[in-house]
């Protein structure tokens, strides 16, 4: 089944370039939008599987759009594409539920590879984003002791991503399967996104923890 994609970017040439790349690679671009308002309206109308989203768009901005999209259809994959890589925004978008992030200067091949991975639900982290996420967990564990922490293995994998290593190189170095590395990164992303109580509770139940004392 072809993956249905929506492209959101306020720059028409960019939008067209990304759209034609995706179409040529076999994706079905079901909608394009130039601002947050259009994006949310067209998202509701077309329900795409994957959204390629620029963060700097006329209001509501990329972070707000990500939050709203994940709220409405949590299974939607969001790949954030940003020119400036504004750090707070990128971290906010990923915390809000985006599955991947790529700078716009990435080549066409890198973009298509990222879209393919995000469509599979595989997180796409840049080294810079991994560094931010490591810092965020450090900050959270200092400020809120109850927040989920990363396991030693997850931290190890995330540090390697932050040092620019590919999943394959990480798998080789840690003598793990590619799939296991991927799972570790996925868990990091899940823990990062569990920022509200409902999700925390769900997490605790999944883990078979007794939540009666806490809630």
């Amino acid at each position: 089944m072809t993956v249905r994609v929506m492209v959101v970017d306020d720059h028409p040439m960019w939008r067209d370039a990304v759209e034609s790349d995706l179409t040529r690679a076999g994706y079905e671009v079901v909608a394009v939008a130039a601002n947050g308002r259009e994006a949310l309206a067209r998202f509701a109308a077309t329900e795409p599987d994957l959204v390629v989203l620029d963060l700097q768009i006329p209001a509501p901005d990329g972070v707000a759009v990500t939050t709203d999209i994940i709220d409405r259809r949590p299974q939607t994959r969001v790949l954030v594409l940003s020119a400036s890589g504004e750090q707070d925004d990128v971290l906010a978008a990923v915390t809000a539920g985006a599955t991947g992030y790529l700078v716009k200067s990435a080549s066409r091949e890198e973009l298509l590879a990222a879209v393919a991975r995000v469509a599979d639900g595989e997180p796409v982290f840049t080294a810079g984003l991994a560094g931010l996420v490591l810092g965020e967990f450090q900050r959270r564990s200092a400020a809120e002791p109850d927040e989920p922490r990363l396991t030693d293995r997850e931290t190890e994998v995330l540090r390697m991503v932050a040092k620019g290593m590919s999943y394959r190189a990480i798998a080789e170095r840690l003598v793990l399967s590619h799939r296991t590395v991927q799972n570790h990164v996925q868990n990091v992303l899940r823990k990062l996104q569990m920022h509200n109580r409902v999700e925390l509770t769900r997490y605790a139940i999944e883990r078979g923890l007794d939540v009666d004392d806490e809630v």
Partner: protein
Amino acid sequence: MSTAGAAIAVESRLLRALTVLRLVLLANAVGLNIYRSGDVDHPLAAAGCVLAMVAWTGYAAWAYVDPRRRTRLLLVADLGVAVALLAATPLVKGGDFDATIPGFWIAGAMLAWAIHFRLRGGLVAGLVLAAADLALRQQHHASDYNDAFLLVIAGPVVGFMCGSLQQMATERDAAERSAARAAERARLARVVHDGTLQVLALVQRRGHDLGGEAAELGALAAHQEQSLRSLLRASDAATAAELSGAPAPGELDLVTALSRLERPGVTVSAPGFAIELPAPVVTELVAAVDACLANVRCHVGQEAPAWVLLEAAPERIEVTVRDEGPGIPAGRLEEAEAEGRLGVSGSIRGRLADLGGTATVTSGSYGTEWSLVLPRTTLREEAR
């Protein structure tokens, strides 16, 4: 809110508190006059004076609410009423009176002067009331002198504090406004920069597609795009550090300083918050990282990819520099050191050792990795 607005808001707040105090003083004065009604020569006149106090307290409570009504005339009338009631005391109670009719109620007028005209107003009102009180008495007891002295002291003190509060509020407002302006400037700059970066990235992409001379243009655009992005990152980190409060004197933000090392090929990964350390430590650490990167350029290639990762645990700072080069053969550094060539060893290991940290290098199929570790405890000791 304008600068004057903050001062007026402080004044209004203090005057509201004063209204409550005036009511307490009024209740006290009315109670005492009823209690002492036995030693009054003219009871009707005394009742008139008490009614005047009640009426004036009510009028003042209303009049002081609106800043436009707080005129000199109102304040002069406020003090005038207090002096007039003091002056009426010998006529109503006879020349050998002990307590004045208004008693402590006159403090209301004095505090209003202190709040409105600050130090000088408090002093003038305190002196006028103290002089009036002492001038009317035939005999002066020690307690009369004490009361007068307290009035003269309290007026300027309250006036000075009110002035300080207004100044602080004005300064706080100015600081908030300038922070808001800086944030707005940063936001506007971000929009412009994002547009520029988009176009550069697009030129790079299209140039690559078209090939030939266009590809060269694309490569140029790519170079500029990367330079601008790292410049923006460093300035963003600096703005964020500034907005979250200026670093302590003699301290620098390590995140900002390391971000400046980003260039084509070099990626700096760091937390999204500032890490403030003593300036000499930051300078030395950045110099050590720069030496690692210079080593990469020298031995792997001019634009060879390298990654810098900064982590800040509560107990230590760790910077890792990784490249994908073949690595340094075991014993090579020691050999160079023994030969008297201190290059890498001196600039990286020496700097870290001087800071009380360690620098270790490992190589393997994954490339070469320098790990620079600084325990926070040595940093604290050094700061002492």
